[in-house]
């Protein structure tokens, strides 16, 4: 007989329409401590989805910047507003993080940084580099 994982948080559930309905599913996420590469990964997803949502803001700004000299200068004045600057900074932070974490992804595709140790180091590098770049993006904005 096949060995099954016997812990309180694991149990086989039947999804009904899924292909492999005998797979154990952990239903209690609070029993899992997400490792650093996992944090990097979920942030990559969250930033990606958020960027999808803010595309209209960027398109609107692109539109205003292209229509005419007047709308371009209006947009420039708008960007002097503190709140608007914060919004742009958050969007830029999302772009920067998503880009850096994406580059880590490409390295892992090439087989670099896939061990437990190097994946952790790579994650720290992603946090460090994107942190620095987000800081400089703020400096550039202000």
């Amino acid at each position, binding site marked *: 007989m096949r060995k099954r994982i016997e812990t309180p948080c694991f149990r086989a559930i039947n999804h009904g329409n899924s*292909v492999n309905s005998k797979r154990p599913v952990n239903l209690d996420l609070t029993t899992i401590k997400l490792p650093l590469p996992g944090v990097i990964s979920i942030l990559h*997803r969250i930033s990606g*989805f958020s960027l999808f949502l803010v595309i209209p803001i960027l398109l609107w700004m*692109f539109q205003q910047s*292209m229509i005419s000299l007047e709308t371009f*200068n209006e947009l420039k004045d708008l960007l002097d507003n503190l709140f608007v600057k914060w919004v742009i900074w958050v969007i830029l932070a999302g772009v920067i993080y998503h880009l850096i974490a994406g580059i880590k992804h490409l390295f892992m595709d090439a087989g670099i940084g896939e061990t437990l140790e190097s994946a952790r180091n790579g994650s720290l590098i992603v946090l460090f580099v994107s942190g620095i770049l987000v800081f400089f993006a703020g400096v550039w904005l202000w």
Partner: protein
Amino acid sequence: MVTSVTNLGRSGLSDWLIQRVTAVIVAAFSFVMLGFFISHPDLQYADWYNFMSCTSMRIFTLISLLAISGHAWVGLWTIATDYLKPTGIRFLFQAACALALFVYFAWAVQILWGL
């Protein structure tokens, strides 16, 4: 495995490649824009307009927009199939995403060529 009917490339491997190729295109576009903004600290309308409306930048921007649409679709598909289990809800979510991406793209084309 979730059905591949809604995959962009109809296979996981194809989506995997699309995700990476489009990522590199968008990254390249980001670096070009970054370089432009850094080299123009006090940007004026004429410089900006001439830069973005020259044929090469229009084409590059259009390619990047296509890449963003494809990249976002694969990413949103992945998120939808991971977190949205009921087929009806997942289908509605994906339909909404597809519509949004199409609107984004059409709007961007209008800005690039219509103005």
